[in-house]
């Protein structure tokens, strides 16, 4: 059991490497390995989730070097939740990619996919700042590969931008990490928390610079306005299943903001305390509005979904930006919803594009096609989810955020932005849906052979996850609440990582 915690990192690393071999390339073996690996990761995540939900914080010192000297990975409620979410989403996306044959339309899909999961899982587990950077790089470089998978002019062009923006972002990450190490003398996040708290006042402005720059990098990944400019082109130009997987990439940014702010830049951090709180809320509200405005403006479904991701991440961050347990609990409930609903719309968009053929996912009328009923139902459900209308989890999440924001001075702004954003999304999605399914050209119906019915299975799977999040909203909100409590009492985390006194090997 003790080594289970590294399974989410080791399994994709090893399987990813194995699927590189010629024998596994483009064969059933490769698919089987990749699927098997993902299922194992889900299982491991479930076991870790069960363990974390008891409230224990488990640490694992790599190489046997105790924190803060070696690299530790830490499992708490938040990381367990992120692992599980990643695994489940990945499984859906992978099955979709296999069913639609995306994995055979280019090189190395499965290795890249597994390495992507490796990066994600690593980022969620690590308790070391520089190691977080390394896993960011792993997940980013895998995402470059996946983003470019299938290629084509537009994808290359958009990929170029995506890569460069993130390279520059990584540069800033190193600056921030460098400052923090240079001033505090540590890289371990728990140790950082202690040392920032004890830092002399003269050092604190420098630490605050490091904190702000670090959060800026995370905000770039989370596509927080005005750092969101890279996202629409990237997500709209990659293949839809990859974009669906990328729904979790923005959440890595969100996760990191939450992790580091509550742990190291929180209550006890002196002049560094809650460094991002001042600017993050307006930025989040603006991304919310810009995102949903983009939903209304989009002329393609995938672009619409991309803007939807910006909008829902904005919603999420507007709750997180309050840096307060209730709002964080609300955000933690909304986070899986935001991820899954964004991904769902991408998966649905992919199938719609395949089924319509001529207009692809452009919001223009096309021929009617066989099996429209099922797809329109799926679209309807995903649209309701993305807009955050009842009865699905998005609505519950928004209610949670609205009520949690009630006490804040910014409540009117948050309320107005969320409700206006929902209205814009509602409007945009209704328009898109009527264009795609109701307004058809007078031509003959396209035969059913144009798309495989089985291709909707993963989308339904993701939808059922959303449904489960809705039905089991009670336990889910309880988990989110407990997670928020854990985050806002970082002493337990610090004690778990450093021990009572925090010594060497």
């Amino acid at each position, binding site marked *: 059991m003790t080594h289970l915690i590294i399974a989410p990192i080791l399994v994709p690393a090893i399987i990813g490497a194995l699927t590189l071999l010629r024998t596994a390339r483009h064969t059933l073996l490769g698919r089987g390995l990749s699927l098997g690996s993902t299922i194992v990761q889900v299982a491991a995540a479930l076991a870790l989730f069960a363990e974390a939900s008891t409230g224990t914080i488990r640490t694992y010192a790599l190489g046997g070097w105790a924190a803060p000297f070696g690299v530790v990975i830490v499992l708490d409620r938040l990381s367990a939740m992120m692992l599980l979410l990643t695994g489940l989403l990945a499984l859906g996306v992978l099955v979709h990619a296999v069913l639609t044959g995306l994995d055979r339309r280019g090189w190395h899909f499965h290795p890249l996919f597994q390495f992507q999961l490796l990066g994600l899982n690593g980022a969620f587990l690590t308790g070391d700042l520089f190691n977080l950077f390394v896993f960011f790089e792993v997940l980013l470089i895998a995402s470059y590969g996946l983003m470019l998978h299938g290629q084509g002019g537009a*994808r290359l062009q958009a990929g170029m*931008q995506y890569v460069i923006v993130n390279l520059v972002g990584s540069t800033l990450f190193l600056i921030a990490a460098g400052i923090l190490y240079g001033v505090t003398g540590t890289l371990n996040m728990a140790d950082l928390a202690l040392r920032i708290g004890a830092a002399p006042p003269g050092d604190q402005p420098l630490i605050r610079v490091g904190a702000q720059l670090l959060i800026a990098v995370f905000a770039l990944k989370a596509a927080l306005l005005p750092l969101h400019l890279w996202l629409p082109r990237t997500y709209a130009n990659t293949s839809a299943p990859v974009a669906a997987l990328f729904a979790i990439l923005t959440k890595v940014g969100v996760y990191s903001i939450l992790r580091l702010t509550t742990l190291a830049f929180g209550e006890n951090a002196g002049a560094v305390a809650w460094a991002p709180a001042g600017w993050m809320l307006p930025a989040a509200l603006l991304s919310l509005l810009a995102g949903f405005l983009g939903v209304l403006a989009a002329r393609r479904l995938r672009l619409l979904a991309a803007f939807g991701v910006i909008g829902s991440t904005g919603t999420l961050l507007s709750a997180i930006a309050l840096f307060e347990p209730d709002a964080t609990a609300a955000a933690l409930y909304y986070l899986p919803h935001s991820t899954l609903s964004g991904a769902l719309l991408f998966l649905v968009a992919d199938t719609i594009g395949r089924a319509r053929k001529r207009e692809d996912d452009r919001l223009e009328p096309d021929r009617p096609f066989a099996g429209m009923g099922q797809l329109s139902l799926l679209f309807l459900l995903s649209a309701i989810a993305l807009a955050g209308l009842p009865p699905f989890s998005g609505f519950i999440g928004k209610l949670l955020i609205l009520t949690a924001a009630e006490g804040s001075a910014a409540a009117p702004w948050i309320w107005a932005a969320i409700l206006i954003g929902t209205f814009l999304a509602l409007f945009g999605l209704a328009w898109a849906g009527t264009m795609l399914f109701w307004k058809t050209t007078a031509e003959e119906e396209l035969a059913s052979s144009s798309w495989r019915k089985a291709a909707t299975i993963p989308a339904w799977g993701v939808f059922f996850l959303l449904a489960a999040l809705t039905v089991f909203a009670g336990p889910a909100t309880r988990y989110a609440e407990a997670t928020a409590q854990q985050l806002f009492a970082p002493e337990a985390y610090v004690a778990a990582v450093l021990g009572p006194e925090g010594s060497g090997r």
Partner: protein
Amino acid sequence: MSLEFLVASAVGLMTAAGIYLTLRGRTFSVVLGIAMLSYAINAFLFSVGRLIVNAPPIYAKGVTEYADPLPQALVLTAIVISFGMTALVVVLALRTYLETGTDHVNGTPDAGETPSDSEGDV
């Protein structure tokens, strides 16, 4: 003039060059900008370990003056990673140019070149 000043100013200059170059319109300039930024960052990250002359972090008994090994290890990792990234971006730039016929980062075609059959016109 102190060594610290030389290093800091060099870091600043390389960063400035990196920022300026990444803001240019041609992929080649942008790639050079990225390369510049990674020099700057490597030097920066190295500098946070403080400067010391003639005291490499090779352990020997009794030595108390030594360069901080940790930032060096970090820089090594960073160098390798940025090497991989730079290589990828160079090839991506090349490949994008070959595919689209323009080396402008936003895909703006140059005069005389026909725009490619891009699929992402939204």
